C-alpha cells in the first residue's frame, strides 16, 4: 500500500485493509458464516467511514439528526421511546429496531415488515423519508463532498472520492455488520464461565418447554445464539390490524399482521417492545403471551393456546422467565467504544 499527496494517486494505489470481524466463539461453533455481500466486503476503511456517517447529522435535512439519533449505542442501537420523531417533529408509527447481529439475518429482509432487502438498501430510506431525516441524496452528497475529510475517506474505502448514495449506504452497512453482540451472561454460562441462578435456570426451562413458554420455536435456543429466527409471525397482538406489517410489503393477505421476530438480546436496553412499542416492560410482554393473545385469521399456529388467551404461566414462571431473558444482556456490546462516536 502506498500513498501520495495527489488524490488520483491515492485512488489508484490505496488498498483497503480487510476488516477482521470479531465473531463470538459460540457463533463460530453454532452458526453459519455471516452474510457479507461480495460487492461490499468489510474493510477497516469502510467500517470507519460507515461509523462516521452513522453518527453524522449531515445526513438529515437540517443537520439535527443522524442514524444514531434513533439507534443509540447505549440502547443497543434502538432508542427508548415508543416512536421516534424525525427532524420535522413528526412521529413514525413503528418502534426503532435494535441493530444487533444483522450479518446473520439470512432472509436479508430488514425492518419490522421486511420491506428493506439488504442492509445497503435499508440505509438509503431514512435519509429521504419525510418523517425521518427528510433530506435528499443530492443534498447529502453535496455536504459530504464539501467536508474536508469525507472525500479522502471515501477514496480510501472505495477507491474514489466521488461520493454518491450507494457508497454512503455501503459504508453504513459495513459498520452495521460489525455490531455483534455475543457476550452475555448466558453466553458465558454456555462456555462454562458463568453460573446461572436457580431462577434463571428455571426461566430457561420455561423458555424451552413446548408446553409452557415455547419461546424457542421463534426466538432461538442455546444452539441458536441469535435468539431469533429472523422470520415473520403474527404473535397475536391484535384481532384487527391497523398495521398490516409484512402484508403491506407482499400484498398477500396471509402475511397481514406478521412482523419480524426481534432478537431477545439486550432487552434491558431496548424497551419499549413490539413493532409499535406498545409494551413498556418485559412483564407486559410476558403477560401478553401468557394471557393476552388475540385471535386473527393469520395468527401463527405456534400461538397454540390462543383460545385460552395464551400459555397461562404462573406468577413464578413469569418471574423466572424474565430472569432468564435478562441473562442475555451484553454489557460489553453496550459499552464497546468501537461502536460509539
Amino acid at each position, binding site marked *: 500500500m502506498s500513498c501520495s499527496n495527489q488524490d488520483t494517486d491515492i485512488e489508484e494505489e490505496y488498498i483497503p485493509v480487510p476488516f477482521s470481524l470479531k465473531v463470538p466463539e459460540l457463533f463460530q*461453533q*453454532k*452458526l*453459519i458464516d455471516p452474510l457479507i455481500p461480495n460487492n461490499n466486503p468489510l474493510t477497516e476503511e469502510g467500517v470507519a467511514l460507515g461509523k462516521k456517517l452513522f453518527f453524522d447529522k449531515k445526513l438529515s435535512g437540517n443537520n439535527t439528526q443522524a442514524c444514531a439519533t434513533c439507534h443509540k449505542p447505549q440502547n443497543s442501537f434502538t432508542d427508548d421511546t415508543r416512536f421516534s420523531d424525525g427532524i420535522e417533529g413528526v412521529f413514525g408509527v413503528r418502534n426503532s429496531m435494535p441493530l444487533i447481529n444483522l450479518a*446473520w439475518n*439470512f432472509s436479508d429482509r430488514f425492518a419490522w415488515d421486511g420491506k428493506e432487502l439488504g442492509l445497503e438498501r435499508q440505509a438509503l430510506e431514512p435519509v429521504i423519508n419525510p418523517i425521518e431525516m427528510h433530506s435528499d441524496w443530492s443534498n447529502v452528497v453535496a455536504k459530504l463532498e464539501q467536508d474536508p475529510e469525507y472525500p479522502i475517506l471515501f477514496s480510501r474505502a472505495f477507491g474514489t472520492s466521488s461520493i454518491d448514495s450507494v457508497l454512503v449506504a455501503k459504508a453504513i452497512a459495513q459498520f452495521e455488520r460489525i455490531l455483534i453482540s455475543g457476550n452475555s451472561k448466558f453466553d458465558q454460562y454456555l462456555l462454562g464461565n458463568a453460573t446461572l441462578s436457580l431462577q434463571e435456570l428455571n426461566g430457561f*426451562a420455561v423458555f*424451552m*418447554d*413446548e*408446553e409452557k413458554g415455547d419461546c*424457542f*420455536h*421463534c426466538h*432461538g*435456543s*442455546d*444452539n*441458536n445464539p*441469535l435468539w431469533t*429466527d429472523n*422470520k415473520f409471525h403474527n404473535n397475536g397482538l391484535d384481532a384487527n390490524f391497523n398495521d398490516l406489517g409484512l402484508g403491506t410489503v407482499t400484498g*398477500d*393477505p*396471509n402475511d397481514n399482521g406478521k412482523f419480524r421476530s426481534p432478537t431477545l438480546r439486550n432487552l434491558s436496553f431496548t424497551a419499549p417492545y413490539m413493532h409499535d412499542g406498545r409494551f413498556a416492560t418485559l412483564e407486559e410482554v410476558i403477560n401478553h403471551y401468557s394471557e393476552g393473545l388475540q*385471535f386473527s*385469521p*393469520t*395468527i*401463527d*399456529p*405456534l*400461538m*397454540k*393456546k*390462543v*383460545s385460552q388467551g395464551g400459555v397461562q404461566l404462573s406468577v413464578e414462571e413469569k418471574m423466572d422467565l424474565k430472569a432468564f431473558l435478562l441473562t442475555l444482556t451484553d454489557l460489553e456490546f453496550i459499552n464497546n467504544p468501537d461502536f460509539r462516536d
Partner: protein
Amino acid sequence: MKKKILAIICFSIIITSCSEDKDIILNPVAITLNFNHSWNGTEITNADFGQLKFTNENDQILSIERLRYVVSEVSLTHESGEVTVLDDYNLVDLTNNEGMSFRTSEGILPGEYSAVTFRFGLKRADNTDGAYPDLNTANFNVPAPLGGGYHFMQFDGKYINTASVEAPFNYHVISAIDPTNVNDAVDTSFTLNLGAVTIGSNTNITIQMDVSEWFKNPNTWDLNEYDTNLMGNYDVQLLMNQNGSSVFDLVSITQ
C-alpha cells in the same frame, strides 16, 4: 503363419485392452434430489398455504401454514451388493421455497444400482445436538429435555375443531422421547427405498411428499385429539412414524 496369427491376436488384445482401459476410468458424479408436494395427489406449493382448503382423512378442514423437514443419508446399493452412503442432509422448506432441490456433495460412480434410498429425519448417530450450523441458524433445534438434536419436520397450520372454531396444530416430528428418561429414545427417522436407478452424469431423482398421508395411513388422525404439544408425546411420535411410511413416492428419475 502361426506366429503371424499369434501376433495379430496379441495386437488385438492390446488394442482391445487399451480401449477397455479408457472405458473403465469413471469419475464419481453427484446426484440431484428434487422434492415436490401434493395433497391427495394434487400438487401444492406455498401459494396454497394459509387457506382452509384441505380436508384430511378424518374429514377435518385444515390449512397448511408452515412445512419444512430434513432428509439425509442418500444411499445407493450397487448391483454388486456394495452400498455407498452419501453423507448429506438437506432442509426442505416449502414455506420459503428453499431446499426443494439439492445436489449431493459427495459423488457416486455412474452405473446400475439396485436401490437408492434416503432417510426422513436424522438417524440417532447423526442427530447430535447443535452439530449442524445451518440447522441451528434455521432454528430447527429440539430442546434438551426432549432429547436435543433436531426436528425431523415442522408442519403447522389451523383446522376447524369440534367447536367449529379455527384452532392451531403443530405436527412436529422428532425422535420419540420419554421425557422421564430422555436417554431412552426411539429413533423415528426412517428410510425410503425408491427402487433401482441408473446413475449417469446428471441424474435427477424427483420425490413427492403427499402431505395428506401424515393424517391417514395407517392411523386416521384426529386433530381434535392430537393437535398441539406433540413433541414430548411419546405415543404420538410413534403414530407419526407409522404414518410417515406412505408419505413419500418416487415421481421420476431423469438423466
